[in-house]
């Protein structure tokens, strides 16, 4: 699990990346944390406890708790059951401080992490992730 600490006097938005593959989720979290100079609360979760591909609502709940610092949390799923698990999380919780971003996984993670590390609000971090869809690489 990848995690980097953020300053506590100004809590930043937390980010959870969820994929079927732990390697994908943790790798994307590594890249996003590095581009944002480590000043962001981000974790990647994925896979089953015995190391197979899959997603777990319990693992997602734990990850959200881990990155939550009072400024809200963005969940970024890659595809398939990761999306369903993220939606299940939203259906179960009644607060508004957790949002799911509909965005390209790696690019959205990087955009969200950099934006969060700059002290942006939850809505701004979600917008940054979702804006990743429209940015050309070439």
């Amino acid at each position, binding site marked *: 699990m990848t995690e980097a600490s953020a300053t506590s006097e100004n809590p930043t938005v937390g980010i959870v990346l969820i994929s079927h593959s732990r390697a994908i989720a943790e790798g994307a979290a590594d*890249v996003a944390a*590095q*581009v*944002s*100079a480590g*000043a962001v609360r981000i974790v990647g979760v994925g896979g089953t406890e015995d190391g197979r591909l899959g997603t777990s609502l319990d693992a997602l709940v734990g990850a959200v708790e881990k990155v939550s610092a009072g400024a809200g949390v963005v969940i970024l799923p890659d595809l398939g059951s990761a999306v369903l698990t993220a939606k299940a999380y939203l259906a179960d919780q009644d607060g508004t401080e957790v949002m799911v971003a509909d965005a390209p996984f790696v*690019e959205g993670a*990087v*955009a969200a992490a*950099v*934006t969060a*590390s*700059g*002290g*942006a609000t939850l809505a701004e971090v979600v917008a*940054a992730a979702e*804006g*990743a869809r429209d*940015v*050309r*690489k*070439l």
Partner: protein
Amino acid sequence: MSASSDHEVAVEEVAVLAADLHARPAGQVTRAATGLDARVWLTVDGRDEVDARSVLAVMGLGAVTGQTVRVRGEGPQAADAVAAVVAVLRTAEAAPA
């Protein structure tokens, strides 16, 4: 619009890139431009301006060492925001291989 229009500032400055504007320096640029009451745009080599708050758009400029980046800011804290971004561009370190 803000009533305090006398505090609105427009600033423009150029910076010669100390390193290629890859992922990490782009992240530093966006972080420098976030959290201040200002909007900042970058352009290089006559390309369309990009919002400095979009790290992916900053990377997408494809700017490389030695190129001159034009930095434009608007808003009450534009001077600080542009100065912060220019400082990153001038001091960015090359990414390890």
